[in-house]
């Protein structure tokens, strides 16, 4: 039942000692991780968005500029000028100065016949009337193609513009090298895996992709196409290998091209991963430390409590023993008292016998004889034994609490040697040398000699026990002294070279029921009773001790007035 109690106690202490620090600990780590994650994600996505935004802007303005170049040509020259190869040569040369991206420049009439051309190929006279781009430009007035390899196996795209004056229409078309373009997009690099590329509506690469994907190839990833016309869309998507990527996309060129910026998620959130790893490490180490400490402290607390409970039990048992002892003492006192009555009768009878005997002898009725002598001796012996019984009963009664306190002047010069002589025999047996240092000019003190004797004998016995424990039966020294202390006070000391008392026990030596002796050997009452006696006499009892060196008890008493 007791063990069960301690187990419950241990559980509740352990529980609170672990929970109380662990909850804030985990909360702090969790909150920190959450905010760190959010901030990293936000900043990563923001930087991807910024890249998308910047590149869209650049590509859009590149396209716009090229278109503006052509529009400028279209509106600065009439059809006849443009149909003149010399003029077109000049225009093309100027155009190439404007932007080296221009590869060629051609003029078409409304039937789609290539009427004039400046560039690396001979294309004049070809009919493009059936081509889709031509139909488109005739219808819309403006056309930008996807990137294609065309006749020349070089990636390029075309921009075509139509002008119509007085029912007559013509078209100017320029081929634009995409190297510029490609470079621009390919240069984008975020972390290790961050890249950018352009797809057309069918998912064909319009620029090379660094992580694999040639121009004009089909994108294996099937990137989600955003539905909105404008703005940047971000999302997560797995590639064919199952790696997750962060994507930021936006439409270019009137929803015909899609600018894609993507980065492997593991790469984008690398810092996050190392933070997460650190957090787990801290959690494991910190949590382990908390739990370990909790176990250690709980163990200590519970052990301390067990020890205190055990001490309490021991104290309780001592109390029971002491009260039983007191009961026995009371009983003994009662018995001693009752025995005094028959002793009184016996004493009277014996007295009477003596008187009668001497009467008879006087009258001469008894002759002196051996027998008579023996009878007298026998009667004397009875008297002796009655006195002996009486001494015993009185000793028991003196021990009992009801013994009277007789206060008289005590001359310590005689008194202390008398008391020492009572223990001398015992000390000699244990090989203890007793030295007395009693000052000749010591004043008498007032008190009950029996009680003072009890105090001194108690101290002597304790000292002898301590000496025997340390030295066995040789080398013991007991030093008893007394002398005036000034201020009308007298000091008695009892000093031994025994085992000594540990500092923690030293505080408790005068407490009732405190004993270091084995169970049943000491009541723990001796010194506390001594303390009480000295206190009643108006004195002070003190102790000083060093473990392993010896103990000194000092009694400070007022001298008799």
């Amino acid at each position: 039942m007791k063990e069960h109690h301690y187990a419950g106690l241990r559980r509740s202490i352990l529980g609170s000692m672990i929970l109380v620090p662990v909850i804030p600990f985990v909360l702090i780590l969790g909150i920190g991780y959450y905010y760190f994650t959010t901030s990293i994600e936000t900043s990563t996505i923001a930087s991807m968005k910024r890249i998308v935004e910047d590149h869209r802007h650049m590509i859009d303005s590149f396209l716009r500029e090229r278109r503006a170049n052509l529009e400028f040509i279209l509106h600065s020259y009439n059809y006849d000028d443009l149909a003149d190869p010399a003029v077109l040569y000049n225009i093309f040369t100027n155009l190439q100065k404007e932007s080296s991206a221009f590869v060629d420049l051609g003029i078409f009439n409304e039937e789609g016949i290539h009427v004039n051309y400046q560039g690396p190929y001979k294309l004049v006279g070809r009919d493009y009337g059936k081509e889709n781009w031509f139909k488109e430009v005739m219808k819309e007035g403006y056309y930008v193609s996807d990137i294609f390899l065309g006749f020349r196996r070089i990636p390029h795209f075309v921009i075509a513009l139509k002008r119509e004056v007085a029912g007559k229409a013509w078209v100017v078309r320029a081929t634009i090298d995409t190297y510029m373009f490609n470079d621009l997009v390919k240069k984008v690099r975020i972390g290790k895996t961050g890249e950018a590329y352009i797809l057309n509506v069918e998912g064909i690469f319009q620029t090379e992709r660094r992580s694999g994907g040639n121009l004009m190839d089909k994108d294996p990833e099937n990137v989600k196409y955003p539905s909105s016309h404008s703005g940047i869309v971000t999302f997560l998507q797995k590639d064919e290998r199952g790696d997750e990527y962060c994507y930021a996309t936006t439409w270019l060129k009137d929803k015909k091209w899609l600018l894609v910026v993507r980065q492997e998620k593991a790469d984008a959130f690398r810092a996050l991963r190392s933070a997460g790893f650190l957090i787990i490490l801290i959690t494991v180490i910190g949590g382990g430390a908390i739990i370990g400490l909790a176990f250690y402290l709980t163990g200590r607390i519970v052990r301390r409590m067990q020890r205190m409970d055990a001490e309490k039990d021991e104290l309780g048992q001592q109390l029971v023993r002491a009260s039983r002892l007191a009961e026995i003492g009371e009983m003994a006192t009662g018995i001693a008292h009752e025995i005094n009555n028959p002793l009184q009768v016996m004493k009277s009878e014996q007295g009477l016998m003596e008187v009668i005997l001497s009467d008879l002898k006087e009258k001469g009725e008894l002759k002196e004889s051996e027998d008579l002598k023996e009878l007298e001796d026998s009667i004397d012996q009875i008297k002796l034994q009655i006195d002996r019984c009486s001494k015993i009963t009185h000793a028991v009664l003196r021990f009992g609490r009801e013994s009277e306190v007789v206060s008289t002047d005590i001359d310590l010069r005689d008194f202390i040697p008398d008391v020492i002589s009572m223990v001398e025999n015992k000390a000699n047996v244990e090989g203890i040398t007793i030295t007395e240092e009693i000052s000749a000019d010591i004043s008498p003190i007032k008190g009950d000699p029996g009680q003072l004797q009890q105090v001194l004998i108690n101290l002597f016995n304790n000292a002898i026990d301590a000496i025997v424990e340390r030295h066995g039966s040789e080398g013991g020294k007991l030093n008893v002294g007394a002398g005036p202390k000034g201020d009308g006070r007298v000091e008695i000391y009892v000093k031994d070279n025994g085992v000594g008392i540990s500092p923690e026990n030293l505080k408790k030596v005068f407490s009732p029921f405190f004993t270091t002796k084995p169970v049943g050997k000491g009541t723990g009452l001796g010194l506390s009773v001594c303390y009480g006696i000295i206190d009643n006499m108006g004195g002070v009892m003190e102790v000083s001790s060093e473990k392993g060196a010896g103990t000194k008890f000092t009694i400070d008493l007022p001298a008799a007035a």
Partner: protein
Amino acid sequence: MEQMKMMLVDDEERFLSTTKKLLTKKGYDVFIATSGAEALEKLRTQNIHVVILDVKMPGMDGIETLKAIKRTFPMVEVIMLTGHATVESAVEGLHSGATDYLTKPTDVNDLITKAEEAFEKRQRLEEKIRVAQTRSFMKSPREIIRDTE
């Protein structure tokens, strides 16, 4: 000189009879009583000087008896006889007017010594009373006549 008359009061009859024999042999006039009531009764009929009174008796105990004696016969000297454990009672007895106390088992010689002392004390007291009465007689005979009436 008047002969001392003493009375032993104790519930132990054998003690009473033996001690009486002893004291009688030593030439004392001794009465005995086994209870407080009997003691008071005997005091009424006899002119007893010293009472040796056991503290612990059934019925009326020593202290009660002592108080009753002192109330009725203030001139009687009482010596308390106590088993050691009732020394407090003996002290209480001294406070209530007992002359002295003896602890059991007491030697008959001690008993005689203390009884003699008590008797002497009583005689001194009687002597003083006599002197005082004589003085007042010298002063006003009529007052003495009135006192004795």
